[in-house]
């Protein structure tokens, strides 16, 4: 269990957060740049001391400004992955991984580092310098290095943002595997809500130093508490299997039933995404009309007003969120339990290989 509370003011940025992450759980903090995400991680790691704060991990107090406790970073059991991985350029991959193994005899250090690297599929690169490795390989070395000391808390700073889109998928898988294996609290920050949704069990949206809403990704997408959250939580993500369709389009068989079309090219396991404001709602009874190719039947779970818009949380074969005007919502008389058809264009459907 990790508890972090911090209040601070650094220049124009005022930080005021309180969060808790359970063992084996990953809390993903998502927010725009400058929102204070990295600051929270640094406070947790001991690299930054807030004006007032509290950090507790596994029963140990690492920081308590009121009682004057401030345990230095090297004595906190944290695993920290930096945005650019901060691998030591003058050391080889295995030496990087072995760096935290202080006091361990030399032969054993190499063996344990090798073992860790092999777990991440990098056994062959043990003697390579970080500069010669690809972005994805470097990310895995950073993860291996972080785990060498069996940390009690994981802190991840934008773990995927340094990677190109193609590598990101594989890296996300590796990271998810790690998060599942290591049953410790994990705190992850990112500017990409989709990444947060994919990796986090819970997501906290952070803006200007405050956590404005916290919950599962679906909850946030379906019932955003503010326009900011609504805009930030972005796309609906559906998983399925893609195959080739007519006219050069791709058909995706959704997990749980249903089929949608996309103009993107992909095959095999994919994540299909579409933005809530591109989803239109129609009564089920109506026959499909217009150019929108995708049509999914769903039941309305939540109706949340956000300014002059309405966010609908829909239960279909997979959870969906749609955003329509208040006027339209009234016109369609939508409420919990209404059965509707969610439609959107194939051209608005993005596919990402999983």
């Amino acid at each position, binding site marked *: 269990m990790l508890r972090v509370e911090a209040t601070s003011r650094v220049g124009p940025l005022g930080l005021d957060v309180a969060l808790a992450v359970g063992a084996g759980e990953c809390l993903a903090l998502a927010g725009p740049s400058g929102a204070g995400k990295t600051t929270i991680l640094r406070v947790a790691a001991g690299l930054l001391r807030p004006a007032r704060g509290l950090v507790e991990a596994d029963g140990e107090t690492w920081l308590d400004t009121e009682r004057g406790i401030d345990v230095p*970073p090297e004595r906190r059991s944290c695993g920290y992955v930096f945005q*650019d991985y*901060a691998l030591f*350029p003058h050391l080889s991959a295995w030496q990087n991984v072995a*760096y935290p193994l202080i006091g361990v005899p030399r032969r054993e250090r190499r063996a344990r580092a090798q073992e860790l690297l092999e777990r991440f599929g990098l056994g062959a690169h043990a003697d390579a310098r970080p*500069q010669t490795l690809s972005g994805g390989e470097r990310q895995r070395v950073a993860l291996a290095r972080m785990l060498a000391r069996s940390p009690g808390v994981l802190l991840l700073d934008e773990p995927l943002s340094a990677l190109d889109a193609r590598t990101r998928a594989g890296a996300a898988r590796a990271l998810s595997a790690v998060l599942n294996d290591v049953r410790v609290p994990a705190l992850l920050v990112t500017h990409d809500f989709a990444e947060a949704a994919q990796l986090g069990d819970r997501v906290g949206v952070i803006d200007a130093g405050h956590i404005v809403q916290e919950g599962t990704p679906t909850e946030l997408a379906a019932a955003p508490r503010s326009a900011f959250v609504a805009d930030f939580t972005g796309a609906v993500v559906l998983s399925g299997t893609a195959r080739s369709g007519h006219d050069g389009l791709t058909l995706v068989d959704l997990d749980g039933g249903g089929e949608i079309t996309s103009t993107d090219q992909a095959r095999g396991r994919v994540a299909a995404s579409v933005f809530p404001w591109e989803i239109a709602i129609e009564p089920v009874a109506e026959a499909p009309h217009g150019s929108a190719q995708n049509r999914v039947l769903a039941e309305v779970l939540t109706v949340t007003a956000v300014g002059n818009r309405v966010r609908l949380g829909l239960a279909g074969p997979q959870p969906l969120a749609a955003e329509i005007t208040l006027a339209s919502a009234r016109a369609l008389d939508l409420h919990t339990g209404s059965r509707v058809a969610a439609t959107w264009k194939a051209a608005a459907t993005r596919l990402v290989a999983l």
Partner: protein
Amino acid sequence: MRGWRRFLWFPALLAACLAAALLFLTLPVVAIFVDRSPAELIDSLGEPGALDALWLSLRTTAIAIAIILVIGTPAAYLVATRSFRGRALVITLIELPLVLPPAVAGIALLAAVGPTGILGGTIEALGIELSLTTAGVVVALTFVASPFYVRQAIAAFAAVDRRLLDASRTLGASEARGFLRVMIPSALPGLAAGTALALGRALGEFGATLMFAGSFQGITQTIPLAIYDRFSTEFESALALSAVLVAVSGALLLTVKLVAGAEAMGGWDAADTRAAR
């Protein structure tokens, strides 16, 4: 200016400047080796004073460099990684001996730690003798050469990606360990460059040494002083010693750069730019 002439004009100027600089810098050095025959030069090296001077120069420079590295490196690290009030002043003070002419450096040393200087009495009371001794030579060399190293070291440490140090701490290494295992290796090319500069300065030091420690064969007469002593009456000997100094300096320079690794060859820090990628 049309077409090709416009394009060639600037590069030609650059090339001309480089040629002039190279010529100016290398001709005197080459002249040392070419003015007399190698046989004559080697002969005059044999006399005992020459070997004494060489050995003394190497000993005193080695000790001075050792002192500079041991004390200057942590000091430079502190200045480079912490901000504190008066930091700019501290840096200026460290750099001051750089702009002092050797004679002024000699006067300064005398005024500070000479027999009649500020600390002269204290030093004498402790039983330490500095003037006219080899220890005095080491003091003079350390004084004039340390800014060359410390300045480079500060720049080198400041250029290291701070996140590497953060990473080191989150991985369980104390700040001291991070300093030794991450900071120094990362800054090595810059440290090597600074060491090379300090080495050259110390080997060639003349004015401050003469004023502060005097000139006596085997005790305080380093190669530069020996050259000065000989040039009016034994020019061959002076030439030979000069040639030795150039050769030794060149060899030491090369060794330092090789030790620091291939990145040092270029002269600029390459390691830190890679770490960021």
